[in-house]
């Protein structure tokens, strides 16, 4: 489903930084319904991989295939079609503060021109799935960290994406809420979605017992089917 082929990403120098090699000749494949964890220290290239898969960044070299389509050749105006197949979960939730939980989730469907009654139904279902049916009218400022992340997960799920990209989704959460979010990701995976989780949390990686790709300085140093935390 996703194929990253000999991909290199070099950030050009700017006023404060010199050239940075974020990824160096990285290749791997992710099958449909797989749960992949990308591990590594800060700056190892985890987020860059997620950005390249979602076409937020263009690779300096190499090819990225999503459903057999080379997305590195996508035109800017066509990227939204790819994004509609992907759900994003971030460490800082990226919720709109002036929209309620319901509206934040519904927003994903509104921008893709869904009908109002369908939005109502779909959001209701996904709120139930993440256990936020009683917080639908709350604003993000009125929620706990775990609830915010569950809202973000609900938003990522609402358009039934094939792939969920989660970038340090438990980074701002306590262990209890982290486990909660992890359980939710596993549940989503069981429902058929491919999950790519970027994290440097030893506890999460070791508890998952799923495939782990470990990155160091932009290079893959280990790719194990039932990996453990090594860095």
């Amino acid at each position, binding site marked *: 489903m996703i194929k990253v082929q000999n991909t290199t990403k070099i950030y050009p120098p700017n006023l404060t930084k010199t050239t940075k090699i974020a990824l160096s000749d990285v290749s791997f494949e992710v099958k449909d319904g797989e749960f992949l964890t990308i591990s590594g220290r800060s700056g190892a290239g985890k987020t860059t991989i997620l950005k390249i898969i979602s076409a*937020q960044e263009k690779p300096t070299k190499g090819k990225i295939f999503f459903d057999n389509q080379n997305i590195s050749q996508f035109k800017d105006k066509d990227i939204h079609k790819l994004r509609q197949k992907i759900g994003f979960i971030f460490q800082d939730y990226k919720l709109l503060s002036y929209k309620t939980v319901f509206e934040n989730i519904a927003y994903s469907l509104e*921008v893709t021109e869904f009908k109002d009654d369908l939005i109502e139904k779909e959001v209701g279902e996904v709120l139930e799935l993440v256990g936020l049916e009683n917080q639908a009218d709350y604003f993000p400022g009125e929620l706990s960290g775990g609830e915010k992340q569950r809202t973000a997960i609900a938003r990522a799920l609402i358009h039934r994406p094939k792939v969920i990209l989660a970038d340090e989704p438990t980074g701002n959460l306590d262990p209890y809420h982290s486990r909660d979010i992890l359980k939710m990701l596993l549940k989503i995976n069981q429902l058929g979605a491919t999950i790519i989780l970027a994290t440097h949390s030893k506890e999460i990686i070791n508890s998952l017992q799923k495939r782990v790709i470990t990155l160091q300085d932009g290079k893959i140093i280990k790719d194990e089917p039932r990996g453990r935390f090594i860095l």
Partner: protein
Amino acid sequence: MKLKTIKKIFQSGLNNFRRQGSLTLATLFVIFIAVILGSSLFMFKGAVSFLTAELQEKVDLSVFFKENTSRSEIFKLEQKLTQFPEVKKVEYISPETAYKSFVETHENDPYLKALEAIEINPFLASIHIQAHSASQYGVISIFLKQPEFQDIIYEVNDSKRAVIIERLSAFTSNVNTLGIGLIISLGLMAVLVTFNTLRLTIFSQKEEIGIMRLVGAKDSFIQGPFLVQGVLCGFFAALLSFILFYGTLFFVRGQLQDLFLGFNLFEFFQTNLLAIISLQLTIGIGLGLISSIFAIRKYLKA
């Protein structure tokens, strides 16, 4: 795009316009200045055209004929002149008419008494020629000074006003060129300033734009509200400048009429209301739209 989506885009643009008070005000002000300048130039052009036309009406070229010239010879010349494309009107003034006109206009003049005393009509027959524009008097004058007319023509009186008008025409043309140049430079400046103020607005919503992109929003959905915001800024700038123009011209119409030698700017404004409103809306909305397109472009890339 569905009607519901268009409504949402419009609503979102309206919200942006209301929420970002100071930035909206700054953008609106810059566009307002540009609209004012554009409209002023239009009004100025109108005033200059009026003055030129007024003066042009008062100018003519007089040809005085020698005493023995017959009416038929003068008529032949008149016929020739009327065939010229430059000639607008030719009017024959007989010595009698000239005398009568002099009497009427110099009723209490001592010269009139002297004239009456000699019992002779000293006035010569003449024709008064009006050209379509001041610059055409030169050609007509050259034609009349040809040797073939020397036997009948006593004097060709080149009006000094023609020179003034020619200068005024040249001035108007220069003002037009300068004005267009000024409008283009000011328009560019306005685009730059509007672009930057709108860019600030867009920057303040960078995160929202990022989220929109990540959830798969089309470019038109992201761009739409900002275009609506730009259009609203332009529309209100045009509306404000219209109110300002209307109010100012209405309240000081008397003073302005004196200042512009009888040209009624308020009446001109009313007569050209549709053209002025269209001009103001075109400048205002055009600037707002162009600036928003340029300002949002950066954020539509991946």
